[in-house]
């Protein structure tokens, strides 16, 4: 990865790493609460039952997979169909957790428990140039976990009286968040190539594969890291606008 003195390095007045993680994730908490609540509402409407909904948020702790289960069961689908959809959606956590494996400590049980705090947002917020900050991961993950479960409980209790998060535009908050986290990573041509290829794969596969597959398949884009510094192997799919030449002159990535 490119060496870059990141402007987002810990500032002078950031006392503890965990608190930095909590602070980093704070802007997202309203959206997480709202989506947790809408999961609770939809799960009740689909007949999942209050306890099962709460247990699911506490154990699965992954929004898209939980919504998938609710929508499959709500439409009269079988448990198997719901499970397949949700596991496909969560399969990305395999490679994501492997990439961040170094931040978790202790024996197997403690690692297993700590790793549960890994979700898209805590993974992305704690990532700096391919390395992961343990305290940001755990601080952000724990706060997200509280928000998601509190939101679910609110939704289960309050039911239909809540506003749809889409009305508030909260569904647009997440892609914007991931874009904001992506931008500082685009400091090398290879990173730009991986991002373009990853996004392209995801868009191309969306209409033709079950939900979840596009994001897993997009992880293959990180194989551009195997390309040699001076040339791109022939036959390799090259994202538009990426010239194989002129790599010797690193330039600031543009979004």
């Amino acid at each position, binding site marked *: 990865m490119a060496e870059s003195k990141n402007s987002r390095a810990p500032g002078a007045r950031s006392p503890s790493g965990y608190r930095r993680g909590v602070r980093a994730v704070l802007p997202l908490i309203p959206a997480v609460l709202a989506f947790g609540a809408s999961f609770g509402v939809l799960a009740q409407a689909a007949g999942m039952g209050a306890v099962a909904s709460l247990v699911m948020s506490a154990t*699965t702790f992954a929004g898209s997979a939980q919504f998938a289960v609710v929508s499959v069961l709500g439409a009269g689908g079988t448990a198997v169909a719901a499970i397949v959809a949700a*596991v496909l959606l969560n*399969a990305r956590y395999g490679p994501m957790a492997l990439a961040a494996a170094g931040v978790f400590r202790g024996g197997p049980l403690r690692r297993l428990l700590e790793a549960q705090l*890994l979700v898209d947002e805590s993974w*992305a917020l704690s990532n700096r140039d391919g390395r992961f900050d343990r305290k940001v991961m755990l601080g952000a993950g724990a706060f997200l976990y509280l928000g998601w479960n509190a939101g679910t409980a609110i939704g289960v209790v309050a039911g239909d009286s809540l506003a749809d998060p889409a009305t508030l535009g909260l569904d647009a908050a997440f892609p914007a968040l991931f874009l*904001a986290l992506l931008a500082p990573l685009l400091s090398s041509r290879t990173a730009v190539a991986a991002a373009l*290829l*990853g*996004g392209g794969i995801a868009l191309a596969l*969306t209409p033709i594969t079950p939900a979840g597959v596009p994001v897993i398949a997009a992880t293959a884009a990180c194989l551009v890291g195997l390309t040699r510094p001076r040339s791109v192997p022939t036959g390799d799919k090259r994202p538009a606008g990426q010239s194989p030449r002129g790599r010797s002159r690193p330039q600031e990535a543009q979004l």
Partner: protein
Amino acid sequence: MSAAWIAVIVVGAATIALKAAGPVFAAERELPVGASRVVGLLAPALLAALVATQAFATDESLVIDERGAGLLAGAVAVLLRAPLLVVILVAAATAAGLRAIS
């Protein structure tokens, strides 16, 4: 057992296992240089895929709707180096505003 409980238990167990497998079994091993270069690129690849699917995918089709407009507004905020909270607010407000007038 109801279908809901079966799904809750199996999906929960599978997700816990997916998240834990790498940290439990591979944490002590140093990755070779080539592999760490690849793993370092996982973040841009995955984040771009999340941006693409969360903004433009609805179930299994591509759609351009208020989320896309929110993303565009958020991208402008990112280019202007706005703080994360501002980026998120700009995106959400854009999507909410467009929905309110449509």
